[in-house]
């Protein structure tokens, strides 16, 4: 069995890449996929810890995260579709209504 740190390191790398995706990319869909990646990274850490602590709760948590992610994707994509309908663009930089 590998030490849990390996998995944590991998999880961290994946998470940072996801975060960078959100920060750098302008395509809303890709940003959204990056968020999914971050969730996956977190899930990986959960499962690793579950193995490490011999507790099934971690896996249950992952299960819940997946559900939430599914819900989130459904609503998020619906938002994107609506946004596209009004703005005809998936460029996040086109949506600057909050500009002070």
């Amino acid at each position: 069995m590998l030490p849990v740190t390996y998995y944590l390191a991998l999880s961290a790398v994946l998470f940072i890449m996801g975060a960078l995706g959100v920060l750098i990319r302008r395509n809303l869909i890709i940003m959204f996929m990056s968020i999914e990646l971050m969730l996956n990274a977190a899930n990986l850490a959960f499962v690793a810890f579950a193995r490490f602590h011999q507790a099934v709760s971690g896996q249950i948590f992952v299960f819940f995260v997946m559900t939430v992610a599914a819900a989130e994707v459904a609503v998020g994509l619906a938002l994107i579709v609506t946004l596209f309908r009004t703005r005809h663009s998936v460029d996040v930089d086109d949506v600057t209504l909050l500009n002070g």
Partner: protein
Amino acid sequence: MNLSEVTSVGGFFSLVPLVVFLPVLGLLINMIFGGRMSEKAIGWTASLASGATFVVAVLLATSLAGHPEAVTIPFLDWINIGTLELPWAFRVDTLSVTMMLVVGGVGTLIHIYAIGYMHEDVRHHNDPSRYRRFFVFFNLFIAMMMILVSADNYLMLFVGWEGVGLCSYLLIGFWYDKGKDGIGNALAGKKAFITNRIGDFGFLIAAFLMFQYFGSFNFDVINEMAPAVAAAAPAAVMAMTMFMLLGVTGKSAQLPLFVWLPDAMAGPTPVSALIHAATMVTAGVYLVARSFALYSLVPAAQNWVAIVGGVTALLAATIAVGQFDIKKVLAYSTVSQLGFMVAAVGMGAFTAGMFHLVTHAFFKGLLFLSSGSVIQGMERGEHHVEHDPNLKRKMKQEHGAGHFDPQDMRTMGGLRKRMKITFWVYLIGSLALGGIFPLAGFWSKDEILLESMHLHPTVYVLLTIAAFFTAFYMTRQVVMVFFGEPKSEPAAHAQESPAVMTVPLLVLAGLSTLGGLLNLPYLHTFKEWLGHTLGEAEHAVEGAVEGLAEGAAHASTAWYDLGGLDLRVALFSTVLALLAIALGWWMYTRRMEELQSLPLAKRPDDPLRKILGPVFKVFENKYWLDEIYKALLLDRYVDVANFLAQKVDWDFWHDWFHDKVLAGGFRGLTWVLAKPFDLGIIDGIANGLATGMQGLAGQMRRLQTGFVRNYALAVFLGVVVILGYLVLRMI
């Protein structure tokens, strides 16, 4: 006394609640089903209800004949608070049953009469739908009057007292959309109610005093305790009786509150007969008789009552001389006769007062009803004239285009030929009222005069003069209405009333003729009857009369004494009455005819006008009492009310004090705080702060780019920094 004791007494005593509930039943039937009943059915239902109460009263009287002591039938607890115990109980004694008989008997006759009278009246006024309402109110009145007379304490008496006042109000204003300016009748009703309320105020205060000194309103308790309380607190008993007198002057139309009664003639004539002549207005007399125990203890109060009665009797009699409205004459006559009764009970001659009350109910009821017959006869005549173009033109020429008044005696005359029954019963009523032997009025009036001669000479003089005037104005009325030539076309075509009206008239005429039998000299049936209730008070008076009259000798031995009838007094008043009749006859036949020769413009409508001159004016205008009251009291009250409402409450208190001083003051304060203080100092600081903040915000807003990625970056930065902090802590 509880019910088991009552049954042991036997007789019909326990039936007494029916005197109240039978009329209530009648009015409920008429109220609920009357809409689907014919006029006849409505009228007879009401009459039957009233007749049934009379039957109950007769049954009670027969029971009382065997058991003359008072019986109290408890009915229900009304108000019980602390020491205050106010049951609704019925008291059956000779006094209350006498009143029940009068109310039930005369009431029923008038009910029957009204079946015919109102049938025409509602058509004359173009609103047949009110027929039912009339009988509902009429039955209500009987019920209320019965509550009044059957009460066993002052407060239940007051309930009936106010209740009859309400019925009076409703019935005076029965044609509330008619009268002077369309509102005259309604105003008359209001006047009656409010004037009576002033009297009720006196009654209430008297009741409070009673409760304070006797701790009860019960007649028996008060009668029993009265001597002791009168000894301990004479002023209190004096105050009680005087305040009660105020109540009496209101309800029984005495000075100074009699002004409502003549106006009350605005009601339909049966109302005037039943309420404003025969029954309700005598409630004051009944009240004083009820309170005999109190009054006989305070001579000063008795004196006042007698004086009020005497002065009212004379004053009203003189006013009656100057009236032209047939019902107004009778109204003032009623006031005057009530004065006789009040004077009598005031002097302590309770039997005499009650006796006159009963006979007066007969003959005054009769007179009013006959006057109603006359009025409707005139209306029928007018109706006839209206449908005959020739006569109509003729009438226009004689009377001008103005509204024809069927109650004005100046338009009547010669009716004895066209309305025979009415004429004869009217004549009987007038003679009875005038005190002509052997009609009912002679006996009762004579008894009052006799007792007043001994007890209160001043009042005797007043009453004797009033009696003279009484005979005179009644002669005047009879002559003006029934004799001579018709003075207008309607009078010439007047028609007699139907049997449903004349039969009650005949019955009442019989009673007016024979009423004196109740209390004949030597027999004194009525006196003994009432003596069971009035007991000691009556004996005391009798003793005083005998003592004063005789000095030393025995009453029965003097030549003029006929077993309680003083021949001197009787002869003198009879002679006076005959004189007055002769004078009246001469003046309104001969003198009137002589006057007819004068040109129309100079011809006076009344021969007295020329003889008495300005004095007649005074009579005609009722001593201007209404005007004086209006100027001194009513207008002043309106002024005060308007001043309080407009100036004090609204302009001063509402607008000035609240809006200007309070609200304005607060606004002023806020202005001072806002402008010099706030702007100068506080605002300075605040504005500085605001400008600084604005600048800062202007810089800060640049952070809000609106780019989502920017915000995300910020979050990310936060993560890096926090994690960095944790890492540094680990190191």
